[in-house]
């Protein structure tokens, strides 16, 4: 693996034939026809790679097109800093300030809960767990990422809010705290897996050296390993923040959605309203072209900019560390390390982290002998893993126990009757497959072509950098923003109406970055020597890519595709305005018809149809089963694949 990297790096230095400028030199003489195919393919791939930029451009244009009018109407300052959101009052007010603070507060508290638990879990997996334990706990935590957000919301609405109301003796459980707990559970898998990668990639010698000097395992972890992985961990936290801030369905179901700033500001039991929640609950019924409608697009623009800021921060940090999760990363050179050290977020985080570790370790370090402090620390770490696993257990248990009873042959193969209170969910299951299949048909060719272009065809140029930036931006775009874009562009502007095709394209755009990234990773892990060998035998670039590079990269690409299927199948926000309908007796017979889909069906059952609790649990169970099966498949494929590459 490391060897592959270094060879590649050398190729780059010696001007490996990568772009048109240099490709003619030093290449064996080849037939004109083959050369033509080669060029045509190159052009084609280039066009595909531009798709990401075009998509981002369109998203921004279409959000601004409908959103800028609110700024004209209220003024930028009154829109951003206005303290009141009351679009239908006698004097309508469109101040998004409480929504911004709500969003940030929910995210911040979620991080306070998620970060210690995730880092504890990451340390546990990387350093403490036995291999057998690791092989259970790691996939278990990753499974948390596979639970669709509407299922979390369902769980939160039924159990969590009620628990908070009773446990803390509050008049109402719908609160900032409830939203933060749910978001924390949803962010934990992201933070844990990225942080675990960072910790595992700290060179072995560091650890061995520390142990050889007589430090205990805990001292080594605290003073050597965690500080060594700190930049990776901070990137993990920022990625987790990105995940948390863009979440819609779970949040809107549990936060109470009152557009107030908590009073006092730290009152975690106050209801709050987030930017995403506002879009989720108001977009469906707003009158087209009204000021309120424009205000909602303004909200989407604000949301996009906040996520953009967070994701740029993550990008700065991750690109500085070089390498991506899932592949072994080379030790940062002195220059890169220095660059990381210079970045402001890094400095702030280091300062904060050292203060925290200092404070946390003070009682152990000074008062307790090293062995005892190690025991205490490991206890806390194990506890954090236990909490995460318990959360997974409670959610699964609740849904499986209540949902299994609803499952019957009729439920799985029938059409819904009596508003979903009777009959089955077959059209929703099939509709979900159609949506996901269509999304893949859109995203898979585009994504793979983009990745091939980025990895095989170009050196780093401003253009590739902007393509990558566009991909990152797409990756960080909240799913509800995709939904709004799909609605404004596909449903209204293109005149598709609420239809299968609008949903497929919207979902396709949403999963495009995942496919591009995983494919890129898979391609990069193919050793440069394979390519060299192929070229040496006289193969053209395209022959080399299609026959030599792509086949061994297939499992990696497949993992990406499977993960995207899981994500697309569980999303509600992008399809609720573009493709989903509540009920339909038949399956859609053309792309212009709307479909039923499992996540939307669950959302409607839980929030709109009274007396459908059994069917809600049943639908949640089926959706969960479907998505988790897909994730499990991805985990298995990857495990197989990793074992091979290690060999």
């Amino acid at each position, binding site marked *: 693996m490391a060897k592959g990297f270094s060879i590649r790096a050398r190729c780059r230095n010696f001007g490996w034939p990568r772009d048109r400028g240099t490709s003619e030199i030093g290449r064996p003489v080849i037939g004109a026809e083959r050369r033509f195919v080669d060029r045509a393919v190159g052009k084609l791939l280039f066009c595909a790679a531009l798709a990401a930029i075009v998509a981002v451009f369109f998203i921004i244009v279409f959000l601004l097109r409908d959103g800028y009018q609110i700024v004209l109407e209220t003024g930028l300052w009154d829109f951003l800093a206005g303290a009141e959101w*009351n*679009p*239908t*009052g*006698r004097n309508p007010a469109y101040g998004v300030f409480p929504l911004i603070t709500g969003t940030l507060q929910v995210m911040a508290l979620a991080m306070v809960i998620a970060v210690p638990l995730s880092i504890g879990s990451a340390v546990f997996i990387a350093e403490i767990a036995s291999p057998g334990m690791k092989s259970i706990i790691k996939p278990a935590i990753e499974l948390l990422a596979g639970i669709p957000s509407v299922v979390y919301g369902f769980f939160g609405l039924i159990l969590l809010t*009620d628990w908070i*109301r009773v446990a803390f003796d509050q*008049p*109402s*459980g719908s609160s900032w705290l409830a939203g933060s707990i749910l978001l924390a559970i949803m962010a934990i898998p992201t933070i844990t897996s990225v942080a675990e990668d960072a910790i595992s990639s700290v060179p072995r010698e560091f650890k061995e050296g520390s142990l050889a000097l007589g430090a205990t395992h805990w001292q080594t972890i605290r003073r050597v390993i965690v500080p060594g992985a700190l930049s990776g961990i901070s990137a993990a936290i920022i990625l987790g923040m990105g995940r948390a801030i863009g979440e819609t369905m779970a949040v*809107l179901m549990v936060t*109470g*959605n*009152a557009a*107030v700033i908590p009073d006092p500001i730290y009152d975690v039991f*106050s209801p709050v*309203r987030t930017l995403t929640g506002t879009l*989720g*609950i*108001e*977009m*469906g*019924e*707003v*009158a*087209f072209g009204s000021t*309120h409608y424009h205000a909602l697009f303004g909200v989407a623009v604000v949301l996009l900019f906040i996520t953009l800021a967070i994701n740029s921060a993550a990008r700065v940090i991750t690109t500085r560390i070089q390498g991506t999760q899932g592949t072994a990363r080379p030790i940062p050179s002195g220059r890169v390390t220095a660059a990381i050290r210079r970045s402001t977020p890094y400095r702030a985080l280091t300062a904060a982290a050292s203060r925290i570790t200092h404070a946390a370790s003070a009682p152990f370090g000074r008062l307790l002998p090293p062995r005892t402090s190690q025991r205490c620390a490991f206890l806390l770490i194990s506890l954090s893993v236990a909490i995460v696993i318990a959360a997974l257990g409670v959610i699964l248990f609740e849904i499986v126990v209540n949902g299994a009873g609803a499952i019957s042959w009729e439920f799985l193969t029938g059409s819904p009757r*009596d*508003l979903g209170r009777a009959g089955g969910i077959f059209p929703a299951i099939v509709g979900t*497959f*159609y949506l996901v299949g269509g999304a*893949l*048909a859109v995203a898979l060719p585009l994504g793979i072509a983009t990745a091939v272009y980025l990895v095989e065809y170009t050196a780093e140029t401003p253009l590739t950098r902007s393509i990558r930036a566009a991909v990152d931006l797409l990756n960080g775009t909240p799913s509800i923003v995709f939904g709004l874009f799909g609605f404004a562009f596909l449903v209204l502007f293109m005149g598709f*109406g*609420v239809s299968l095709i609008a949903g*497929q394209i919207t979902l396709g755009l949403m999963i495009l970055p995942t496919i591009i990234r995983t494919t890129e990773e898979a391609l990069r892990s193919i050793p440069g020597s394979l390519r060299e060998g192929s070229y040496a035998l006289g193969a053209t670039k395209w022959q080399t890519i299609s026959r030599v590079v792509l086949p061994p990269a*297939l*499992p990696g690409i*497949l993992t990406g*595709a*499977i993960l995207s299927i899981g994500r697309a199948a569980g999303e509600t926000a992008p399809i609720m305005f573009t493709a*989903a*309908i*509540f*009920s*339909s007796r038949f399956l859609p*017979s053309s792309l212009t*018809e*709307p479909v039923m889909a499992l996540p939307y069906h669950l959302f*409607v059952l*839980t*929030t*709109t149809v*009274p007396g459908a609790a059994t069917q809600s649990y049943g639908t949640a169970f089926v959706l969960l089963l479907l998505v988790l099966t897909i994730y499990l*498949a991805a985990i*298995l494929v990857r495990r*197989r694949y990793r*074992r*091979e*590459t290690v060999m």
Partner: protein
Amino acid sequence: MTGKSLSGTTTVAVAGILVVLLMMAGCLGNDQTAAPERITVTGSTTVLPIAEQAREAFEAKEASAEIMVSGGGSSVGVKAAGEGTADIGMSSRDLKPEETAGYPDLVKHHIADDAILLIVNPENSVESLTLDEVRGIYNGTYTNWNQVGGSEAQIVVVGRDSASGTREFFSEFVMDAEDFTRTQEEFNSNGGIQQKVSQTPGAFGYVGLGYTEGVKPLALDVGGTSVRPTLQNIKDGTYPISRPLYMLTNGEPEGLAQRYIEFILSAEGQEIVASEDYIPVRG
């Protein structure tokens, strides 16, 4: 990399790709042979249950008919019917002046009435309120149940999202367009409010007539007499908070759309209206 494990991976990969291809094939090759007569109905989530139940009964009679019902809200319904993207729009409010101006050909079909219930948790001892008290709670004047004749407990005010037709009606009828208290928790459906109120002892909310499971509807104190929201009282207007529900067509309906609306207005259709806890307009 051993040969055995490589072939294993390839098998998995090929299987995966096959699944994907099958999914895509499912998408493309799905043309049905018979072309049934087909209409789309979209709009208000309040009217949706009627449209949906009527669809089931109607399709049982006319096997070739296909009626596709979806929600989205009254504004969606008005726009879809006006622009012709749907054959029938559903609305739980009257047309706004700009909508009448934009789509002059829209025809309203009054298919049912809906009452709005004020609901509290069954544990709450309050039985009836005056409209002024309701307004006082929603605008933030009263924050504790003991101010309106209940026991000491904070009132958790629950309402619909600001784009909802139900809220608009409530706002005009009860609130006199006064602003709601800013601590009001908002849900985007009747079911959400019902769920919340049934779970929360201090909660106060408003929902359509059908959403009474696990909650207690309050009587309204009108001029000293307490009026319960019974069908009779709503029908004759004694219980005042009710509104008409419409189906909208662009011009007079034809073909399937016409037969469907006629079916809803027939005795059988109006029975469905009643069974879904709305107020029939005929018979």
